[in-house]
């Protein structure tokens, strides 16, 4: 187990290296001239060239990449072209809001999704099932930006119960977390339902019943534990998407997080910030996958780590 974790962590290095190449290439392929943006609209052509030289953007792209990597290995992510502050600082300040928004969205989505899934699976083809699956399909189909805007309209503008955006009190979390989690809750509900329905047909469920266990114990104890195995994988992936996918929601709710930072830095062609953010998203995915794999082993004893 310990060796497995070490091995997986070591594997991260080459993956990140490859990812960095791709990111660097793609970022530099975005049309637009950051030197022009930094220098300002009124700057002369000579000024722009001066800025370009200062930023090192006049050098061949391979050389730029090596400079970037040299700094990256030393832990230096560079400076933001826009603010001039260290990228690590920029991102550091934005990471926690996104992290907590994701965690809260995930928390309610998984709990509600599981509940709906289990109820739907056990009350198959009854009104509870139809109701739950109607909700799940709606949750999947509603575009999140639209849902977010509607919720702002109703709860913030009309009723005035909750703030329209920003991150001040716990109240600020409610609308964005709800919006962000809706899709996940829907996916978890549908996955749990189908997975649990399959599991409930298994022989060991009948064995559980033949022991005299209550239906509740059979479903939640024997059934759900087995049904969780595929659900966990899918939820892990969703978690990754949420961390990155909050881009739209953060814009709608003016959330001071990574997603909004990414939008701003792309608009400004802030190369170092974009690169660093992409790298962080990649890292998040890798870490979440590792956690999912480890959870897998806990849930399914037939998996042994080599």
């Amino acid at each position, binding site marked *: 187990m310990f060796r497995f974790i070490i091995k997986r962590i070591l594997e991260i290095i080459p993956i990140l290296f490859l990812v960095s190449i791709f990111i660097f290439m793609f970022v530099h392929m975005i049309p637009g001239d950051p030197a022009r943006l930094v220098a300002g609209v009124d700057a002369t052509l000579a000024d722009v060239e001066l800025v370009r030289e200062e930023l090192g953007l006049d050098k061949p792209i391979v050389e730029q990449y090596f400079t970037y990597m040299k700094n990256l290995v030393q832990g230096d992510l560079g400076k933001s072209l826009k603010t001039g502050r260290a990228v690590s600082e920029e991102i550091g300040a934005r990471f926690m809001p996104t992290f907590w928004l994701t965690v809260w969205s995930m928390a309610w989505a998984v709990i509600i999704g599981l509940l709906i899934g289990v109820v739907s699976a056990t009350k198959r083809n009854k009104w509870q099932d139809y109701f739950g699956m109607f909700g799940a399909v709606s949750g999947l189909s509603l575009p999140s930006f639209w849902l977010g805007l509607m919720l702002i309209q109703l709860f913030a503008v009309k009723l005035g119960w909750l703030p329209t955006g920003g991150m001040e009190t716990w109240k600020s979390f409610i609308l964005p977390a709800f919006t962000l989690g809706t899709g996940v809750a829907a996916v978890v509900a549908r996955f749990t339902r189908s997975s649990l329905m399959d599991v*409930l*047909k*298994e*022989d*060991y*469920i*009948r*064995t*559980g*019943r*033949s*022991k*005299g*266990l*209550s239906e509740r114990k059979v479903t939640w104890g*024997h059934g759900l*534990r*087995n049904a969780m195995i595929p659900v966990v994988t899918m939820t892990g992936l969703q978690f990754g998407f949420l961390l990155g996918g909050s881009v739209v929601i953060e814009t709608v709710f003016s959330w001071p997080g990574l997603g909004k930072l990414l939008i701003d830095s792309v608009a400004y062609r802030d190369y170092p910030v974009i690169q660093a953010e992409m790298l962080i998203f990649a890292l998040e995915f890798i870490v979440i996958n590792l956690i999912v794999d480890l959870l897998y082993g806990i*849930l*399914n*004893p*037939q998996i042994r780590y080599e």
Partner: protein
Amino acid sequence: MDQPVLKVNNLQTYFTSDAGVVKAVDGVSFEVSKGETLGIVGESGSGKSVTSLSIMRLLKDTPGRIADGEILYEGRDLVKISENDMRKIRGNDIAMIFQEPMTSLNPVFKIGRQLEEAIILHLKFSKKEARERSIEMLTSVGISRPEKIVHEFPHQLSGGMRQRVMIAMAMACNPKVLIADEPTTALDVTIQAQILDLMRNLTKTTDTAILLITHDLGVVAEMCDRVVVMYGGRAVEESDVLSIFANPKHPYTQGLLASIPKIGERLDRLQSIPGNVPIPSRMPEGCKFAPRCPHAMDICWEKEPEYKEVITNHSVRCWLHEEVPQDESELVGSTQH
């Protein structure tokens, strides 16, 4: 003879599907006494497994339901009691082992936990006592190193070991009745013999009644005191094991026995009963066996015979053994091919 522990009276279990109502079990009666082993024999589709699931009231995830009849356990009708009361009987008074040891244990829980579950539930033991009882049960089913096995997962055990665990689990609360649905079918022949030995020895000491469901007449000969032969959802013959083997009355039983190859007998082809078990939704009108019966008469096609005790302790459902309102000579003459 002892008062029967379990008595099934005219059990009828119907399945409702889009195609209509299918009578999977239609009028099965038998009883089993303390310490007795009753075999239920029949081909696949004869309704023997549905009978056992009906007794346990485990038809929940099937479209089946008990339409009529009584299942008397120590005088209580299990058909009528509440689900709550039934749960107290399952695994406690009546336990069951299944055909598939490979899939009948939950893959994600340790053996110990799966054993202790029923012990804690029914015997109200503490966790520690339940663990001791589990180890004791595992020892009694011939598992060595039981204190190690309780910490293992099902996939770490072989099929034979798992069936032993299932037996230990079923016997843990000292049930009065053990229902074994094809307990050895999925196992190797050598393991089969061990498991049968084990069941016989275990139940001898505890005086448990066994309901052994099987299609294997060899298993019946080895294990059973009495036998019920089922065909098309009905009991067609019942007697003690010696009479069934020595003097089968129903043509179906005769056919089954004839299809066992005998040592020292040379045949080019194995004997078999022509035709197939009828599809439950397309049951023949009269006797369900008539289409395959070498002795079928006109009346067999029209009216179903009653299940009657023709000699003491030997019941059969067949017109050949009924008072037919016809001349005896005519009976023989109308044999159909």
